[in-house]
């Protein structure tokens, strides 16, 4: 870590919340993002542990948390984003709704407050969207194979994106009339607003993924048809 004593100098600051009167009037997100300086301080608190609990034990995606914390501190945001998307297809989703087991596993949480990992993740990816670093990744070569993905929840979308980038022709079958599954129908707006999903779906469409909504696999179409 560029600043090895930062965890002693700065304490944890969580993003503030909008006031209740305002929140009562709508169902929108209520977290107020940290400002730039505060973000750098929070990233600096990462101790670059020899055995980082957040990365190997806490995060099911094995996000390279100490690495992108360091990059944020050094203000190398694009590098931070590349490290983040290497293991995580939709950081804007996990950055909002993940219960952050990484923070529970953070070494600082043994006797102090953990690094604000989830919020840093969100800020990195939102910066990437603003700067236009998130673009469709079109496969250079088509494999000529077709893959059907049943269900358009977070898993289906991730699988579809990874397979499409390998050059396969992907069709997602979704029984509801909108794409998103749990993201759209299971998570309320104050945690994850719908535009966040739509923004990502644009990228998926541009990568050549076809969406078939209102198709209940097994009822409307058979496994034989899919073959």
């Amino acid at each position: 870590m560029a600043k090895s004593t930062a965890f002693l100098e700065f304490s944890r600051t969580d993003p503030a919340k909008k006031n209740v009167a305002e929140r009562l009037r709508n169902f929108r997100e209520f977290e107020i993002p940290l400002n730039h300086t505060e973000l750098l301080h929070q990233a600096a608190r990462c101790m670059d542990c020899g055995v980082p609990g957040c990365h190997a034990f806490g995060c099911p995606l094995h996000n390279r948390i100490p690495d992108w914390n360091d990059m944020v501190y050094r203000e190398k945001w694009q590098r931070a984003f590349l490290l983040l998307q290497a293991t995580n297809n939709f950081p804007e989703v996990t950055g909002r709704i993940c219960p952050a087991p990484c923070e529970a596993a953070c070494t600082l949480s043994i006797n102090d407050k953990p690094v604000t990992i989830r919020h840093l993740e969100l800020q990195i990816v939102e910066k990437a969207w603003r700067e236009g670093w998130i673009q469709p990744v079109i496969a250079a070569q088509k494999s000529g194979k077709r893959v059907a993905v049943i269900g358009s929840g977070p898993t289906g979308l991730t699988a579809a994106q990874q397979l499409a980038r390998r050059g396969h022709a992907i069709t997602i079958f979704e029984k509801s009339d909108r794409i998103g599954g749990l993201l759209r129908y299971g998570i309320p707006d104050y945690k994850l607003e719908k535009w966040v999903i739509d923004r990502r779906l644009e990228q998926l469409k541009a990568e050549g993924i076809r969406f078939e909504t209102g198709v209940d696999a097994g009822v409307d179409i058979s496994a034989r048809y899919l073959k």
Partner: protein
Amino acid sequence: MPGHKVSAEIAAVRHTIPGVTLISPPPHHDIYSIEDLAQLIFDLKTINPTARISVKLVSEVGVGTISAGVAKGKADTVLICGQDGGTGASPLTAIKHAGLPWELGLAEIQQSLIANRLRNRIRVQVDGQLKTGRDLAIAALLGAEEFGFGTSLLITLGCVMMRKCHLNTCPVGIGTQNPVLRARFSGKPEYVERFLRFIAQELREYMAMLGFKTVDDMISHSELLYPEPAIECLKAQNLDFSNIFYPVNKDKHSIRRSTRQPETWQVGDLEAEIGAKSQPALSRKEPVTLEFPVRNIHRAVGTRLSGEIVKKYGAAGLPDGCIRINLKGSAGQSLGAFLCPGITIHVHGDANDYLGKGMSGGRIIVTPPPGATFPAHENIICGNVVLYGATGGEIYINGIAGERFCVRNSGASAVVEGVGDHGCEYMTGGTVVIIGQTGKNFAAGMSGGIAYVYDRTEMFDTLCNLDMVNLESVWSKSDQEILHNMLKNHVKYTNSRRAKMILENWEAQFPLFVKVMPIDYQLVLERMRLQEHPSEETVSATEEVY
């Protein structure tokens, strides 16, 4: 050890100055061969006859031969150390690429010691990431009778393997001097105890399975071990494990473990006589003067006496010059090793290697034999590695010393009339005056102390290693005073012609002296001076200023 971690407590323990960087672990410049090691063991046994001396060896090819040498050198324990350990401050390259598994080294040591009929003389200890009772069972079967734990005990005390020991930022308060972080330490001795009890319990379970009653019975039964068949595939097929499990017990009467009883080290005749004749000083602090002829078979003269004095009077020893020992002849190795305050040894003749090794006080004077016709400052009078690791005392040598003069000296002051290569290497304290030629690589790794070199040819800068030191002239009054006093003492004790010549022409000669000043040490001294005159801007001696 970085200077900012050398706090006042650490400096006191290590006899250095707070804030001065220490080269750690130390390169053992007193050990270049198995004979050197035997000499060190001899010295340590002489200073403390009841001490158990343990020699730690890295597991590597050929370690069996070394262990045989260690046993013959009369060490009590040989410790074989595997590849897997390493402190959090170790570089990754060292953690990943240094050493071999302890199993290989241990098997080799055990076989070598038994083959040479030395196993009964020495205890074998093993360490290197021992974590379970199974590890201990394997180690015992391969021949170890003692087991060392490092990392696993630290983990029980709360270590989270941050690998930040060298940065002073350990968040659980183990590897840090920062009081805020130290307050976060949550370990208790009971945790270590409980862990070791579990280990012992697991070892007992393995012993029950194997049918052993005691660990002693278990030692060196490698025939009970076999390679895991599950790994006998593909590349592992090419590995030959037979030498690890080589049956060393073919001869039923061969002794497989240490049977030596703790014994008290017997000192030589000269040492015994010195001890007997010093009784008035030892019991009543009466000054005594002793005269003996000395030969090079008399090693570590004065060491046993120092041990007794320190045992009785503590580190302060006796009043200066209470015991005077005059020796005539060629003194053996380690003359005055670990010498304590109160003893003055004067050798009329010459001295061997390790003169004044580890001395903490007292005075050693070496002069050519009376009637010698050669010029003292052109002739070598004592061996290599003088004052290795000394922490105090004075030494006056009327002649040239060998190589590695004052290596790791951290407090003794010395006057000598010339030195070989690598003078003042890794020095961390003390004052050295050299009124003659020096060899190459002077002051390599010197992080503390001061050396004054009489540089008549003005070529000294080509011989000095300037990585860590600055060269200055002796311009300040205080420096001149120190130098003048040390030379005056040199004349007083040795009647040195060269020192006399310099003192007689002081105004003309002192500008020829070069002051070798370690860069770190200078900063620390400045900070200490500030602390003596406190003001608002005072910074702590250990605070980093750069």
